[in-house]
């Protein structure tokens, strides 16, 4: 029961985060971009529960509105990575042989780079925009999905229903797409959830060092970067609240992934 409790809590938190992402801009008490020169660097108070930043903007509103940007960056990157990675991995796992070797070699070469460093290099090469942050995060996540889908597909390629489908005369590609692949989805969902947390951290890290998102957009990473200069003088609220939001979102996705894994495959619990 206690394990289910953790999954229930993380799922509710997940729904709450999605809700904030969708409706955040209507819930924010102030305009996240509205500056107020007379109201800068105020500590948390009733009027501004998270305080105001160096330009007088309300931190609570910015944290709420940032949910959408962070989530959409991470979600797009993971979706792109999942589609391409699982396609490549399924092909490698189903047919083996040369496909397996080439795709495996490609995946290993990406993994030979420290992934955050590779993302920096990709963004430097393609240009400093939010789209390229998404592409870079998608590329560095590819080996993850290739590996998982390859493993799950190769487990299932000798299954009885696959043999039965072959007997019916269904072509190999259709068997892979309609029989094997849907069966690999439950474990893949677990990996997607775990990967979302990592993708959010990655995107925030890239924007912390100044790539992708530009001021005055509200995004958790860039807000922590802006708040970093004020920590040494004691204005802790500029960096704490976006950082805490980041932590909670990642923690939620990780717990969700663990809970899903316990549901899908109880043998793999840690």
């Amino acid at each position, binding site marked *: 029961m206690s394990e289910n409790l953790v999954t229930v809590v993380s799922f509710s938190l997940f729904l709450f985060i999605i809700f904030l992402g969708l409706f955040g801009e209507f819930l924010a008490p102030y305009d996240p971009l509205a500056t107020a020169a007379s109201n800068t660097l105020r500590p948390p108070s009733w009027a501004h529960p998270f305080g105001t930043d160096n330009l007088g903007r309300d931190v609570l509103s910015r944290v709420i509105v940032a949910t959408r940007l962070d989530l959409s960056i991470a979600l797009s990157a993971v979706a792109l990575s999942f589609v391409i990675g699982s396609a490549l991995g399924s092909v490698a796992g189903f047919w083996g042989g040369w496909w397996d070797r080439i795709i495996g*070699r490609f995946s*290993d*070469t*990406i993994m*030979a*780079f*420290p*992934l*955050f*460093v*590779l993302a*920096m*290099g*990709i*963004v*430097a*090469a*393609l*240009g*400093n925009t939010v789209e390229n942050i998404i592409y870079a995060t998608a590329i560095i996540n590819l080996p993850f999905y290739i590996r998982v889908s390859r493993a799950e597909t190769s487990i299932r390629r000798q299954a009885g229903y696959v043999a039965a489908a072959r007997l019916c005369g269904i072509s190999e590609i259709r068997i892979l797409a309609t029989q094997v692949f849907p069966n690999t989805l439950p474990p893949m969902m677990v990996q997607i959830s775990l990967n979302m*947390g990592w993708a959010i*951290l990655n995107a*925030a*890290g890239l924007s*912390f*060092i*100044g*790539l992708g998102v530009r001021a005055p957009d509200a995004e958790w990473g860039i807000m*922590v*970067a802006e*708040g*970093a200069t004020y*920590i*040494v*003088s*004691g204005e*802790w609220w500029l*960096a*704490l609240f976006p*950082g805490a939001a*980041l*932590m909670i979102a*990642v*923690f939620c996705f*990780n*717990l969700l992934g*663990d809970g899903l894994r316990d549901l899908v495959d109880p043998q793999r619990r*840690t």
Partner: protein
Amino acid sequence: MNTKLYKIGWRLLQAVPSILGVIIISFVLTRALPGDPAVYFAGAMADKESIEQVRQALGLDRSWIEQFFIYVGNLVQGDWGQSLKTGQPVTEELLKRLPASLELTIIGLGLAVLAAVPLGILAATNPGSWVDHICRLLVTAGVSLPTFFTGLFLIYIFYYLLGWSPSPLGRLDIFYLSPSHVTGFYIIDSVIAGDLEIFLGVLAQLVLPTITLGLFALAPIARMTRGAMLGALSSDYVRTARASGLSKSMVLLTYAFRNASLPVLTTLGMVFSFLLGANVLVEKVFSWPGIGSFAIEALIASDYAAVQGFVLSMALLFVTVNLTIDVILAITDPRVGLEE
């Protein structure tokens, strides 16, 4: 012993395609720039002549294969391009700053291992106890913590609130002169110079950034240690050792831990890869003059040769570290080389 050498040689050979793949991707990244790469490498201030010179030097008017060989030739000769910002060769800049980053990464990794391995062992030998729960909580929370966030908050608590730490402005307080350069590692250099004051100053500056990096590496190492120890403790050979009446510490350390240390060592390689990325963030937070800050400045200044040099050097470092770990594993694992 012959088969062991053969295995080690085979592993060394396997590193060659990895390095080749890394160089190919680096090459692609230097040519994937939107527009004319020569303009990017020549810089914003270049006139038509220098752009043409850069174009000739990089061979951009030739075929892809020729360009690739020119690129590899340049790399091998040590010409990784010029940094636009400083005007120095990229290799010089990277080598100058490498000791600072390595000092941070090695000490951070060391701290993490010192904390995580005992924690993992204790958690595995006392399943269900509070140590086990703390370990699991740390592991789950640890992978959710953004490195830059922990760094900033350590600064807030230990520098601003408590005043225990010196100001987070790099490797040494401005009051001190840096120790005379022998290795570039300030800790070693200050010991060689025999200067206790500088040594303590260097140590004080190192505390917060290395703890930040260590915290980041703690979670995966603790999780792997706990998992590997649990596996080792439930194995047949440990049961035999216990049945033979061997002492608890002998069973734990000589039998269980020795066997569990192999997957932990493999995990260290993966953790090192994450640390190289986290290094960049920590160097930004603590204004540490290492390779990471160099790369960040180069990124902002659109200094492409410098950034790609950084990416390539980090990848080569990672491949080397993995290779070293695999060779150490091959040497220390008595089962390797006995299969034939």
